[in-house]
């Protein structure tokens, strides 16, 4: 008895002593400026640090462009972050190929089983997990209910592409700008093109094109997507001067109530008010969400979604504590808190029930029920091909290039990679 108690006591003392040897710093580099998210993350870090004395987890923020400029050099220095923000897709694959990422499949299978499969797959390269997602988003049409009512357009009636074009015509006839797009930055326009590809080609389209099957990017799906986009643009649905409008300006135009629809990601909800002329934007009650219409003859389903998947990838030299932190971070309770504070839409299954904002809830439900979720084209394909997609989307819409030439340009960029 005595010996056992003594041994137990010794074991306790030893256990308490061990963490004192492991004084580790874990740096997490990210670009998220949403206040609710940062507050939550700082809290998670604090909770973890408290529970694990000797480990200090710290989130570090860099602005988006600065992050992209600095990361390649930073990864070559001793100051490299242990975990860093990622949009998945081509950049992540390049980082993995350069040997900069760590395989964390074994450590995180547990946490990942609780997450949406699509999101988890977005952070796998060749079947191995190099990181963990935490956020998913959806691109959809945000529409101004009042302007719809004014033109006599009913959102429930817009199911197919032709319904959509009719709605656009009706809005125009009523003197309302049907669509606002920040084409000055190009990527907002590529949402149209991407969704058309997804609706027309279904869930294999992009993967096949990447693998150079069926003519690669020059196949009928991409050409038809271009044709449909051109068809839409021919109705002149965009706001005046759309080719030089920035994304922030377009959010302001929507918030001012000067355009009926904006095809955009979920962050628009946080942007339209501060960028509006009044500072108040549209009240939430006046905003509705409309899924991208289906295209007649297309293989895609109306429940297929397009949107970003964001997460953290693990640096090759990251200490065990970093991976451990990722498990801690991915817990259900934090996902629910993110949902409840509208920090972001979490990927943990079931956490979306905690969302209070009805618009965000609608997006989260769409994602949970999604039959095929596609990451942003310009992330998935990597920056070299991605930027060409951005360029040609605007060019096709503005009538500067034909759908066939656009598809060929994408294929060229893919070949030059």
């Amino acid at each position: 008895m005595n010996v056992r108690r003594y041994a137990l006591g010794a074991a306790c003392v030893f256990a308490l002593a061990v963490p004192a040897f492991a004084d580790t710093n874990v740096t997490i580099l990210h670009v998220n400026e949403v206040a609710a998210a940062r507050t939550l993350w700082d809290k998670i870090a604090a909770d973890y640090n408290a529970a694990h004395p000797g480990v200090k987890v710290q989130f570090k923020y860099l602005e988006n462009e600065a992050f992209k400029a600095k990361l390649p050099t930073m990864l070559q220095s001793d100051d490299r972050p242990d975990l860093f923000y990622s949009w998945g897709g081509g950049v992540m694959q390049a980082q993995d190929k350069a040997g900069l990422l760590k395989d964390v499949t074994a450590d995180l299978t547990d946490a990942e089983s609780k997450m949406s499969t699509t999101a988890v797959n977005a952070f796998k390269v060749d079947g191995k997990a190099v990181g963990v997602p935490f956020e998913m988003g959806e691109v959809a049409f945000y529409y101004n209910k009042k302007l719809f009512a004014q033109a006599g357009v009913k959102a429930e009636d817009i199911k197919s592409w032709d319904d959509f074009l009719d709605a656009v015509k009706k809005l125009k006839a009523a003197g309302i700008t049907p669509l606002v797009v920040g084409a000055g930055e190009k990527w907002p326009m590529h949402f149209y093109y991407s969704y058309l590809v997804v609706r027309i080609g279904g869930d294999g389209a992009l993967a096949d094109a990447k693998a150079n099957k069926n003519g690669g990017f020059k196949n009928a799906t991409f050409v038809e997507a271009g044709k449909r986009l051109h068809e839409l643009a021919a109705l002149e649905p965009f706001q005046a001067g759309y080719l030089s409008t920035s994304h922030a300006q377009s959010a302001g135009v929507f918030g001012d109530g000067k355009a009926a629809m904006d095809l955009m990601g979920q962050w628009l909800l946080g942007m339209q008010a501060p960028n509006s002329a009044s500072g108040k934007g549209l009240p939430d009650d006046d905003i509705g969400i409309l899924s991208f219409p289906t295209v007649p003859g297309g293989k895609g389903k109306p429940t297929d979604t397009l949107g970003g998947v964001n997460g953290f990838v693990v640096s090759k030299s990251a200490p065990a504590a970093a991976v451990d932190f990722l498990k801690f971070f991915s817990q259900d309770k934090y996902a629910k808190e993110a949902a409840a504070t509208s920090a972001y839409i979490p990927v943990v299954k079931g956490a979306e029930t905690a969302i209070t904002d009805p618009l965000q809830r609608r997006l989260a439900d769409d994602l949970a029920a999604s039959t095929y979720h596609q990451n942003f084209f310009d992330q998935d394909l990597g920056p070299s091909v991605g930027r060409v997609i951005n360029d040609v989307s605007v060019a096709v819409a503005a009538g500067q290039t034909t759908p066939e030439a656009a598809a060929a340009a994408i294929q060229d960029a893919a070949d030059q990679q």
Partner: protein
Amino acid sequence: MRGRPSRRRMNALAAIAIFGALIVLAGVVLVPILATVLGGFKELGELRVNLLGLPRHWVWSSYWDILASARYWRVLGNSLLIALLTVTLTLALSSMAAFTFAHLKFFGDKFLLNYLLLGMLFPAATAILPLFIKIRDLGLLDSYWGVVLPQVAFSLAMAILLLRNAFKQLPTELLDAAMMDGCGYFRYFLFITLPLSGPILSTVAVISFVASWNGYLLPLVVLDSESRYPWTLGLMAYQGQYSTSWQLVLAFITLTILPAILMFLLAQRYIVAGLTAGAVKG
């Protein structure tokens, strides 16, 4: 005074006309600057729709919050330190080299000058990766010198050209007289060349200061600690992935122009002092 009155009147009219033209030009030049300053007093949405007018309500909090934040003063201090180090080192190294090229002819002097010239001809943006590796290998990452030394290196070419040009224009009699008096090159450099080159030295100083002050890419890749960030990196706090608080950015930028203006005025004062010192006459 026996000047013809009509000529004097013409001169006076000409002076007024010129002054008027300057005022108009100054106004045109200032419009965007004023828009920047006023922008800090507006709300984000108003900035887009009411660019040139006075703010609907004067938002004092943008400027005030920045001035009251420790971050502003810290990044300002960092920028100032980096810029002053850059200017001092640039002036020192470039004036020494320019002097050598201006006065001395030796084997390889043309080659070396052309070598330095080449540095102006390649876009610096492409060299960031290898430059980073050099800085890292020298152990200068995340340090002020890691920013200062490359900045000096990049500004040498232009500075040397300007200074060499100016040094060569100083009258020859001075050097001849000095040499005859047994004054060596070093003393000539310190006591004659430099003092007489006030205008060009202060111009090079100002140009070098502004380039360093507005430098962004180099500090971004070299510095990791937020405590060392210059204001161009401190700006990131107001910028986001999808949305930027432009009114805060403009307020911040306005507040960071002030030290550059101060530097300019100081440098100009130095010229005036140099002029009244009555240097070369007679």
